């Protein structure tokens, strides 16, 4: 940004409202949003799932799903060109010439049947050689990479190609929708660094949609916070993080668990998470969840007013908002019913090889050591986190421990007891689409040969334990939100409590508030049901919060193992240090 005088706006959104239709019902997704992004500015748009942030991104791109019969009112202008009400030709022209986009799923966003070079060349407007763009986004050996197909590149490299395609248009504005959510932490750190550097070098404005406050503060100049289809706060990144003026922003800050979160208590979470994006007709949409809510909050929509951090906020009580607003929302852990003693699982010299597919004329098949001489003991009632970047073998270790995968060599020995249960990353995919939730939970009760009424009672009790309405037993996975799916999967796992609960990246796809609630739930259930926990993650903060011991893996080997606090404060192995270095809140500090 130029030091004197504000640069001209690239994106100007005024009073934008969007209504989408689903199953014949109208849902107001965005409610009178006003937002300006100026030349060279990076704005992070922050909000939970369902807050409408992705819809805003789609609305700006003119890509609202046509079969949802979108109704749009208000104004979206890019470089002064009004787009609402414009024909599809005008949208296309603006998208082609002025707008770059980076999506969450980089591999899915590239055409699998075209070489990288061909796809990149389509985006280049000024005849510069494509290899130069690949070099700028940090892809090694760019000349030969131009000949590659997307499947030959890693997820991180595909995202770099997408970024190259976005900037090669020389756009005024880039819209990035959760571009690093699908990537592991180390790659995420590199991509964030790349985006920031490129936007700065070329003076490109960027609207960055994310649910991750740490990512937002690592990257952006300004943060706008969305809640239930409205912009509730807008301010410069560092001051907003120190002095949030909206109670919702304070809640987001609190739900973020860094490396210093208090492990002795549960994470503070919002009372009820919104499941739908419908906006409240009158009043403040946050009033129902807000401890400061007063009468006007329920009857009058709070206007946009200046905030203490120099930005703006929509809240009647913003002057009373303090950082300890939600302190009461954190509850203590329940007593643990299982003493941490007695060997539960012993893995001895476990090996697993994977053969990479043999290619014609490419020589002999290569084998990769996914697990190399793994020795690991898990004790009853204990909580162990396995941490590593993607490809480190941590998920393979979990699958071997669960008995889903037979080791090539070595032994996995269990103490007698209820066999382990797994919570998968893809919660929806772990539920059978054509069976009801109740039927699937009941499946684990079949060996007990209960009467149907008793079985239904046990299923309802399990659903209540994970914080779901027992009525959900009759629903199918498609009727549930992502968070509800994960809770339903958890209910299935604990309806007969296993001695060991395995979680495979169970919170990686969740936004911060959902993830915090899930960590609280897993921690509570493990303590109250006496289950040991094996928690596989790439996130050291989550690992430290949930686990007594952290095991760090790299290249199929255990490289470091120890008490959780010790691993994050005094790491020894370079792989651990790299994971720590890549944590977004470390990045934020580096920027500041």
């Amino acid at each position: 940004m130029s030091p004197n005088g504000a640069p001209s706006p690239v994106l100007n959104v005024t009073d934008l409202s969007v209504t989408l239709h689903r199953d014949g019902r109208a849902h107001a997704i965005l409610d009178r949003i006003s937002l300006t992004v100026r030349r060279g500015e990076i704005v992070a748009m922050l909000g939970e799932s369902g807050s409408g942030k992705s819809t805003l991104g789609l609305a700006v791109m003119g890509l609202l799903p046509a079969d949802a019969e979108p109704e749009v009112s208000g104004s979206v202008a890019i470089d002064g060109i009004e787009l609402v009400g414009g024909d599809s030709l005008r949208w296309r022209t603006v998208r082609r010439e002025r707008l770059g986009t980076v999506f969450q799923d980089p591999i899915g966003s590239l055409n699998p049947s075209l070489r990288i070079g061909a796809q990149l060349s389509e985006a280049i407007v000024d005849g510069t050689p494509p290899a130069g763009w690949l070099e700028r986004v940090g892809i090694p050996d760019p000349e030969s990479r131009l000949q590659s197909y997307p499947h030959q590149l890693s997820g991180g490299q595909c995202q770099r190609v997408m970024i190259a395609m976005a900037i090669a248009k020389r756009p005024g504005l880039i819209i990035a929708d959760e571009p690093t959510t699908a990537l592991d932490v180390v790659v995420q750190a590199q991509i964030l660094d790349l985006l920031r550097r490129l936007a700065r070098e070329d003076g490109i404005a960027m609207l960055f949609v994310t649910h991750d406050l740490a990512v937002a503060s690592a990257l952006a100049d300004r943060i706008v916070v969305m809640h239930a289809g409205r912009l509730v706060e807008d301010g410069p990144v560092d001051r907003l993080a120190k002095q949030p003026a909206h109670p919702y922003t304070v809640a987001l800050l609190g739900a973020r668990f860094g490396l210093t979160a208090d492990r002795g208590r549960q994470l503070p979470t919002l009372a009820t998470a919104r499941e739908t994006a419908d906006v409240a007709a009158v009043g403040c949409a946050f009033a129902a969840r807000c401890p400061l809510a007063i009468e006007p909050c329920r009857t009058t929509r709070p206007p946009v007013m200046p905030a203490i951090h120099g930005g703006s906020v929509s809240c009647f009580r913003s002057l009373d908002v303090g950082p300890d607003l939600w302190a009461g929302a954190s509850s203590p852990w329940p007593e643990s019913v299982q003493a941490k003693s007695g060997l539960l699982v012993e893995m001895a010299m476990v090996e697993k090889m994977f053969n990479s597919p043999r290619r014609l004329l490419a020589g002999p098949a290569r084998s990769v050591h996914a697990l190399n001489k793994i020795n690991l003991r898990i004790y009853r009632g204990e909580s162990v986190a396995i941490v590593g970047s993607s490809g480190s073998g941590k998920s393979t270790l979990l699958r071997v421990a669960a008995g889903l995968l037979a080791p090539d060599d070595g032994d996995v020995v269990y103490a007698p007891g209820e066999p382990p249960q797994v919570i998968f990353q893809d919660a929806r995919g772990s539920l059978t689409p054509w069976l009801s939730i109740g039927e699937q939970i009941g499946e684990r009760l079949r060996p007990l040969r209960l009467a149907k009424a008793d079985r239904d009672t046990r299923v309802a009790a399990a659903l209540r334990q994970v914080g779901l309405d027992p009525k959900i037993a009759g629903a199918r996975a498609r009727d549930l939100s992502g968070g509800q799916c994960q809770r339903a999967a958890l209910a299935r796992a604990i309806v007969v409590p296993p001695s060991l609960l395995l979680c495979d990246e169970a919170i990686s796809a969740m936004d911060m508030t959902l993830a915090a609630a899930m960590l609280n739930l897993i921690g509570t259930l493990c303590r109250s049901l006496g289950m040991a926990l094996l928690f596989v993650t790439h996130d050291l903060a989550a690992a430290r919060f949930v686990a007594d011991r952290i095991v760090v893996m790299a290249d199929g080997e255990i490289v470091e193992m120890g008490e959780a606090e010790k691993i994050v404060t005094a790491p020894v192995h370079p792989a651990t240090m790299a994971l720590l270095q890549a944590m977004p809140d470390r990045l934020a500090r580096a920027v500041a």
Partner: protein
Amino acid sequence: MLERAAKARTQMSGLEAAAVCMLLVITLVAAAAPYLVPADPVLKIGEPYQPPSLSYLFGTDEIGRDMLARMIYGVRLTWLPSLVIIAVGVSVGTVVGVAGAVAGGVIDLLLARLTDLFIVIPSTMIALAAVAALGPGIWHTVTAMSVFWWPWYARIVRSEVKAVSGRPHAEAARLSGVRGPRLVIRYLLPAALPTVLVTATLDVANVILVLSLFSFLGLGAPAPAPELGAMTARSLASLTTHWWIPILPAVAIFVLVVTANLAGDGLRSLMKAV
């Protein structure tokens, strides 16, 4: 998040729903043919070569048989064998496919190669030879065709079941202690069902065409029996003089094939919603 916003609505179109209803009506008519026909389809009931009129709705053929009665019986003789062939094909294919996918190893390899063998041999030719040897007759044709009609279904079921058994929901079911037939029937096979059902409805058209081909060549139902393909074939010579005799059965085949295809499309869009 974007995907959720873009989730498409899945419904049958009006045309497809009409086709499904039509197919049901056709099946009922075929089943109830003896009670519906206005006259015996193999007996002379009037003057030959009568054009469609109020007394003979579809006219009479070259020896004075009622065309409407022959058409209704024709649908019965074409449609019901098609259903039998497809039902046998789907059943055998499902058993072979599931057996291979679940057993794995050598059994899977053998079953897969057997399937390939049945796919690569020119099945229609061999069925023709078999029927020629057994002598013409509709049930000989049905038997010969059923023997060759399962491999595609075996392939579909095998690959769908294999794919789905590696997905998290199947793994979760295994971890829940579900084993054996219960795992297959409740957790694996339903994933293959939409593809199999849709393939089957689209396949109806193929079966009808091959059956008609058999009849056309004189290998289907023998002479006096009113089979649609045979009716068209035998009366082709009168196309220019008495058009209704070859054209009406041909139109019936056309309608059956198009209806089955549309109904298949409809079922597919319905299955996507599940």
